[in-house]
Structures are given as structure tokens and as C-alpha cells.
């Protein structure tokens, strides 16, 4: 009898948790979210448009892709998505907007939950603290004609509080008891963090020290939606091999 009771208790716990998540999500939904608007995702050489495509594939959204062959700007300020009448250029903003309009509550922990602040941190970190340190480390290596990574976090404090190496170590700590950057479940923070992953491993850094991050990459890129997205996005979405010129990786 005991195993049955425990199993029922487990089911109740699981069901309870799922129910809470569902309810909390529903409360954050905008009222007019039911009408899906046309979604266009722009492909441009030198830009990873994979992130919004991956999100759309995860959500099962209908979308079309359009190649921007004659860019008037560099990819970083070129349109990335158009949803309804709104055009967005920033990857994290594009994902947040699609989620808020087409799938409120999905692929993110509910607002106010324990995982929510961390989710917010990683959705911003990917392009902000993460990539800004990658850029600075590249500039530093170039200015010293170094082919390998030069640590840039200064022990005395001050401006150089962190660099790509310390960011990687922090991520490794985070993943010690977390499965995803979005919390216990896969979410949009994981889609965004792939950009940092693909630029962070400078020559000279030891990948074996970051086994959990590498394992995370393996797990998220094994998702069927990622594989579908990769096929849809074409060669421009292929992960960059090295951060030779990270400004192209936005």
C-alpha cells in the first residue's frame, strides 16, 4: 500500500505544481492574445536569426522568413522580426515580444516564482554582460596581438570586475543545480544564451572546466525544434566557430 500512497503523493505534488504554473501563467496573459498576428523573421548575412526561428518552432507558430540582401545598416540594427505592425531589431526584445503576444506564460517561469529573477538575469545577460565581456576580451587580445585568451578581471575590484572566464565559471556554478537558464524547464533564456555559448570559448580557455555548460548546449541543441529551426534558417544561422569578430554574431 505504501508505494501506492507515495506514488499518489508524487502525482499530487506534480499535478499541484503544474496546476500552479498554469494558473499563474494565465493571469499574466494579455486579454487580446488569442488573435495571432503575422510573424516575419528576417535573415541577414552575419546575423543569427536562429533565435526567433527556434522560438517560433518551439511554440508551433506560423511564420515566414525573408532574406534581407540589401541591408542599409549592419546586421546589429537591422530588423530581426516583424510581428503585426511592430518591427524589432534586438534578439531578446524580439523573443520577449513574441512570447507576450502569442504565447503568454509559455517558455518562461511565472512572474513572482523562485526561478523568475534568474530567468530575467539570463535573458539580459546573454547580450549584455555576457557579450560585452566577449567584445572587450577580443579587443584586448587584438590590441596585444594575442591569439589566446587574456584574463581581464582585476583582483582589486574597480572596473574589471568580471570577464568571459569569470562569467563562464559563474555559469558552471549556476548549472550545478539548475537544468536550464529558464529554471527547471527549458525556456526563452536558453534560446538567448546560445549566442553567448557560441562566442565564449576563446582559444586558450579550457573547455573541460565548463562541462555543465557544454552538456547544457548538447541538451538544448538536441531538441527537435532546434533542428527544425537550423534547417529553416539556412547557412546564416550556422553557429560561428570562433569569436574572431563577435560583432557579426548578433
Amino acid at each position: 500500500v505504501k508505494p501506492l500512497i507515495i506514488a499518489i503523493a508524487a502525482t499530487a505534488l506534480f499535478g499541484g505544481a503544474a496546476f500552479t504554473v498554469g494558473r499563474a501563467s494565465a493571469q499574466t496573459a494579455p486579454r487580446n492574445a488569442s488573435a495571432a498576428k503575422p510573424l516575419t523573421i528576417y535573415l541577414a548575412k552575419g546575423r543569427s536569426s536562429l533565435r526567433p526561428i527556434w522560438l517560433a518552432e518551439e511554440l508551433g507558430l506560423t511564420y515566414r522568413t525573408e532574406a534581407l540582401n540589401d541591408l542599409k545598416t549592419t546586421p546589429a540594427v537591422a530588423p530581426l522580426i516583424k510581428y503585426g505592425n511592430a518591427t524589432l531589431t534586438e534578439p531578446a526584445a524580439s523573443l520577449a515580444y513574441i512570447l507576450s503576444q502569442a504565447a503568454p506564460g509559455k517558455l518562461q517561469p511565472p512572474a513572482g516564482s523562485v526561478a523568475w529573477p534568474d530567468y530575467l538575469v539570463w535573458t539580459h545577460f546573454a547580450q549584455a554582460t555576457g557579450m560585452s565581456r566577449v567584445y572587450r576580451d577580443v579587443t584586448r587580445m587584438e590590441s596585444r596581438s594575442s591569439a589566446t585568451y587574456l584574463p581581464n578581471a582585476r583582483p582589486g575590484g574597480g572596473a574589471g570586475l568580471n570577464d568571459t572566464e569569470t562569467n563562464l565559471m559563474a555559469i558552471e556554478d549556476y548549472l550545478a543545480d539548475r537544468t536550464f537558464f529558464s529554471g527547471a524547464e527549458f525556456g526563452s533564456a536558453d534560446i538567448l544564451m546560445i549566442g553567448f555559448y557560441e562566442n565564449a570559448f576563446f582559444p586558450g580557455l579550457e573547455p573541460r572546466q565548463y562541462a555543465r555548460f557544454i552538456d547544457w548546449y548538447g541538451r538544448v541543441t538536441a531538441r527537435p525544434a532546434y533542428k527544425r529551426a537550423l534547417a529553416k534558417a539556412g547557412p546564416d544561422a550556422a553557429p560561428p566557430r570562433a569569436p574572431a569578430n563577435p560583432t557579426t554574431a548578433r
Partner: protein
Amino acid sequence: MKMIRTATAALAVALGLATAATAEPWSPPADKPQVPAGVAEPLDLKKPLTIYHIEGRRSQRIAWLAEELGIPYNLVYVRGDVPGSGGIIRALPIRISFAPTIWENGRYMFESGALVEYLLAKYGKGRLLPAKTSPDYPIYLNWLHFAEGAGMSRFYRDQTGLDAEGFSRFNMGQKEGKPKTDVSESMENLDAMEAHLSKYPYFGGSQFSGADIMMYWAWERGVAINEITGNPKSKYPKVYDWGARMEARPAYKRTMLRALPDNQPDQCRVQCKPGSSRPAGTPPAPR
């Protein structure tokens, strides 16, 4: 035997789920913020928010947001001592040391864009943020992320190149000649900002919002690059006008008096320029 295994598995599932549902946040809990002696302001534990600050750094944004929203906050830093303020953050029990870091609701958190979103959701009561159904919402989101996305990544990189040539933003007009650094991507950022501000009064659209608070810190770097490279202010009239409107906000002025009391020339765009409209303040603090 089989029953025991089943029970163990079920228990593990139950425990695993319980762990997932109640797991501690990544930053370890702390019942009060860690503050060493010698900081600029005494700590008041009745205040819900503690901001770890370095003068002239991104932590200024969070102090400004707290001033706009009326959140009582402790501002922890060592006046006139950038490495000293950084050392306080480095000593915290956190994995990534960064300004801003906050202590709030028993935990530490960092990343200024995430903090703006978090604090607006928790304390904003709908202020400084367009409704999700508003046409301003995608505009707000895009500039909220642009500030540290395309914005700072390019301003920062170009300024690093300018610094290496001796054209720092702290000695503007003092070095002769024209810099060789390619600042075209910074100019492209400013073009995008000017185009937007020609259509909307604020970065979040029709209303002042968290996107403006995020953008100001990037704006300071952008206009500095514009001037270092010899461009007139008239090249970006809307961009300069927006900055002046931000600096005229009472909450911004209160923030700067508290967060940059000595107006140190190595951390302040305006002060280091001859003919600045900002109050002269105290003489330059020695580094």
C-alpha cells in the same frame, strides 16, 4: 523488493519535484545585505532595497529608477574610491561581481536590464512601463534591450579603440588631431536613436519609461564618441534634446547628487567638457 524499488523511485520523483518547486534562487539567500565599514551612507535595514554602487557606473540606473518609483534604498559605495566600491561587490557571496548588484527580498541580483524589469514588475504598479497591449510595448522592449545590446556593445568597443589612441572621453578637446578608430557602428547607433526620437518623445514611445533609464547610460557614451570624433551636436538634435530632458528630471538630479556627489571628471561626460551646462560642483577628485 520490487515494491521497495517502486517506492524509492516514487519518493525520488516526489523529492525531485519538491526541490524543483522550492529551490533556492541562484544567488544565496541573505537575511540582510553585507556592508563593510567606511561606506558613504549608513545602512538602514528598514529600506527594502540596497544598491551596490560604483560612481559613474551602471548602478546609477537603478538608483535613478528607485528615485522615480519612490522605493527607499540604501546606496552602498565608497565615495571617491572606484576600486574600493568594486571591492565591496567582489566580497559579496555572489557568482558574478557587477555594478549594479542589488540586495532585495533576501537575495542578491545583478544585470541592470533584468533589475529594471524586476523592480518595475514588483514596485512599479504599472508605472514607467507601457501595457503589453499598447503599440508602445514592442518599442519599449526593443530599446530596453538595445541599451546593452547593440548600443553599449558598440559604443564600448569603439571607445576602447579611442582610449588606446589617447582620445578618452575625459580629455575631450585636449588632444589634437582626428582619431583613426572606425566609429561607424557607433554613428549608426546614433542614427537609429535620432530616427526614433524624431518620431517619439521617449525611447519607450509616448511616455517616459524604464527604457529611457536604460538608454541614458549608453547615450552618455554615444554622444561622447560623436564629439570626440569632431561631429557637431547639431548632427543629432533629437538625441541631444532627449538627454537634456533626462538631466532635467527631478529624480535624475536627486540621483546624481546622491550617486555622484563629487561629479568626478573621470566618470562624467559633461563635467570634463569646457562650457558644461552642469553645475561645476567640487574640484576634480584625484585618482
